[in-house]
């Protein structure tokens, strides 16, 4: 059982890394990652909604008849998104302002409904918690990575701290939508390259054995 939980947790970090392997949740990945802080905040808000909503869905999965499950899930998710939205607006007004409409848009983030459909509605609380935590942390790391790369190239800073000196001429394109697509494409290529190297190495190891 513990082994199984470990697997459910770990798969979200690499094997099913949401933006780069599953290519899910692209709207926040592309839209709000123009700085590392924004990426991190978006990831935190998403993992909160993802974790709590999927736990709730896993709890009520037997009482909701399958014909009305999608509206029921959306109501649960929307409630939690409202909680996250109001919390951010009250505690971190600056971040809430810079993320703008993308916090309410977590409702339609396909990672959350996808996990609910694919996992939470078939599994009990513990595996669901492991699964959503893994996927959520993978999502946070991906968004923070995107935000870091774009912030370094686009502002010459990282988490608001000036990193590159005045000799660096910022690449304005990196904080524009076009830069999001360029960085995203590069990272997908990188992730695919690493995983194809991994399978090659595994095949070689199997051959030599």
């Amino acid at each position: 059982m513990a082994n199984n939980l470990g697997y459910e947790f770990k798969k979200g970090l690499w094997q099913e890394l949401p933006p780069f392997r599953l290519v899910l949740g692209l709207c926040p990945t592309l839209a709000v990652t123009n700085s590392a802080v924004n990426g991190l905040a978006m990831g935190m808000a998403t993992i909160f909604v993802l974790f709590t909503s999927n736990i709730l869905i896993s709890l009520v999965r037997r009482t909701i008849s399958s014909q009305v499950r999608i509206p029921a899930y959306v109501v649960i998710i929307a409630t939690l998104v409202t909680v996250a939205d109001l919390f951010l607006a009250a505690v971190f007004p600056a971040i809430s302002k810079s993320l703008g409409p993308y916090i309410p848009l977590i409702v339609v983030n396909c990672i959350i409904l996808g996990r609910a459909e694919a996992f939470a509605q078939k599994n009990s609380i513990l595996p669901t918690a492991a699964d959503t935590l893994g996927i959520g942390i993978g999502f946070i790391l991906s968004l923070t990575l995107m935000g870091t790369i774009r912030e370094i190239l686009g502002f010459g800073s990282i988490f608001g701290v000036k990193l590159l000196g005045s000799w660096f001429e910022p690449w304005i394109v990196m904080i524009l939508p076009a830069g999001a697509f360029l960085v995203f494409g590069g990272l997908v290529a990188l992730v695919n390259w690493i995983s194809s190297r991994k399978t090659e190495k595994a095949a070689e190891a199997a051959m030599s054995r």
Partner: protein
Amino acid sequence: MDQKTLDTKEIKTAPTPEPPSQAATKLVVSSSPHFLNNESVPKIMHNVVTALLPATAASVYFFGWRALLLIIVCVASCLLTEYAFQKKRNKPIKIYDGSAIITGMLLAMTLPAGFPIFGAVLGSVFAIGVGKQLFGGLGFNIFNPALLGRAFLMATYPVLTTTWVWPRTMEKAVDAVTAATPLAMAKFEGKLDVPLMDMILGNTAGSLGETSAIAIILGGLYLRYKGYINWKLPLGYLGTIAAFSAIFWLSDPTKYPSPLFHLFAGGAMLGAWFMVTDMVTSPVTSLGQWIFVIVAGILAVVIRLFGGLPEGVMYSILFMNAFVPLLNKHTRPKVFGEARAQKV
């Protein structure tokens, strides 16, 4: 047709590897087209480089050695990027075919003379790396690599790419004082009185290769003489720009610049002769070419007159590049004997 002559004179295209020693085989069986000519990719490309020489000379004359430095930097970084990509992908090294030289020259032609060197290197790496090699190399790129590099630089360094300097030859020229291009003056200051002769010769502010219309036309005519470009593409593009801008000019000559101004200002000439005519990124069918140049011409004028930017040639061509596969597919001429599917 004598098969033996075919193997030496066969058209060589970039993606196909060199045919294995066919001298040993008696009968050469090759796929169509079988027409004979002794053109090859390097030959065409080197002729295009020759065609760019007048514009290069004009840019050095008007903007000084700094212009030559920019061109050399762009060409060198394009060649190096091409080499690095081909080496890394274990592909045959084809940097001598000259296509990267052209990309480098054309990219430099679109930059202002005072553009920093690191920016030129970055643009060249993007043009060849992302614009060409990521799509699979010469012949597979969707967008004109030089224009893509320029578009990237425009988004990356919006201030530096629009900081123009006066040419050395202008009377009021003081070294490295920022200037406005004729198009920017027309758009933001409403000044339409730039002397036409200055724009034709190149005695205005602007990027290296776009100022001297006459040098570009010379190069374009050389390409036409060699038969590498179809007259439809440059003349259709320029004709559309002239005709479409004439509508506005006739409606209000004090507000809108004249068609001649549109033809000789900015990148219209460079775009028409060297970028619209790019063999890889323009349609192959006649109807497709007409649609390509007419829509691109209209877009260029619309962007110039009503868009946020003073110049629209680059985006008009890049935009239409994206439609080339679609145009090629839907304007395919009917094969002899082919019957259209009957609608039931």
